[in-house]
């Protein structure tokens, strides 16, 4: 069984925001809500790095752990989804999420916090597949159409990969080895550590340094 994951290659991301636009267009996301956004580190400096960030569909999701009404569930493909009919818009999931994925649309005249909205991995929600109710509440269900999330499939440089974790990890590994930079690639060494370097020789007692 596939375990759906996103992986963003910071070496390739050019901060075009195509993924953000694809997501907003595909799911008709309301004004003020961004299920996906591009974050740039050291913006404007040489060597800046950009990454596309959304819900990472965590294996042990903190949003699920803190939800007081237990509206979250995980599908058999490892996608973290929630039931908007149950959500009370308390915002606990927003505080718990390390990626800032949960979004809250303004609701009513006084800007009250509405029901939580987040990336669904284009897998819809707990409504009948391809129904109007599912689209209105959760967006399009591309996974049930045999497609992957629009953001990943639309990415022009293929920096953003989405799909079965094993397959996209293989794609990324192939890229890393093809680039020939090995563990210097941002993300690889961070995750798996660099090869152990030989320890410097100990100075002999009495020897001049």
């Amino acid at each position, binding site marked *: 069984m596939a375990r759906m994951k996103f992986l963003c290659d910071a070496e390739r991301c050019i901060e075009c925001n195509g993924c953000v636009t694809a997501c907003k267009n595909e799911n008709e996301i309301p004004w003020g809500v961004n299920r996906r956004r591009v974050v740039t580190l050291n913006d404007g400096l040489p060597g800046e790095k950009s990454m596309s960030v959304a819900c990472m569909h965590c294996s042990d999701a903190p949003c699920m752990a803190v939800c007081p009404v237990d509206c979250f569930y995980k*599908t058999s493909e490892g996608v973290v989804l929630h039931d908007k009919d*149950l959500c009370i818009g308390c915002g606990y999931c927003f505080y718990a999420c390390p990626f800032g994925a949960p979004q809250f649309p303004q609701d009513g005249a006084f800007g009250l916090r509405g029901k939580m909205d987040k990336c669904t991995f284009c897998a819809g929600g707990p409504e009948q*597949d391809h129904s109007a109710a599912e689209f209105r509440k959760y967006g399009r*269900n591309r996974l049930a159409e045999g497609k992957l999330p629009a953001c990943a499939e639309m990415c022009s440089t293929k920096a953003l990969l989405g*799909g079965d974790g094993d397959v996209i990890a293989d794609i990324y590994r192939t*890229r890393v080895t093809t680039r020939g930079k090995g563990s210097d690639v941002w993300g690889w060494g961070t995750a798996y550590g660099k090869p152990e370097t030989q320890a410097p020789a100990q100075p002999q007692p009495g020897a001049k340094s």
Partner: protein
Amino acid sequence: MRARLLGIAAASVAALVLAGCGEKANVTVYKQGQYQGKPDNVPWQSEPFNNDKANWEKTIKARNNNQNEYLRTQQ
């Protein structure tokens, strides 16, 4: 009279001190919640795949591999 007062005072202090022994620990035991919402169906259940899980997995795998331009350029 004085001994009686002392006795009452000692008993009161003993009762106050021993009252602390009856306090229960205020540590909350975390309990994993269960999903309370509506059930959702699997992606291959609906129209294009009609419960054909193998076909859905094949389609998704093809889409997955389509993201690998090293494979695409060799085709």
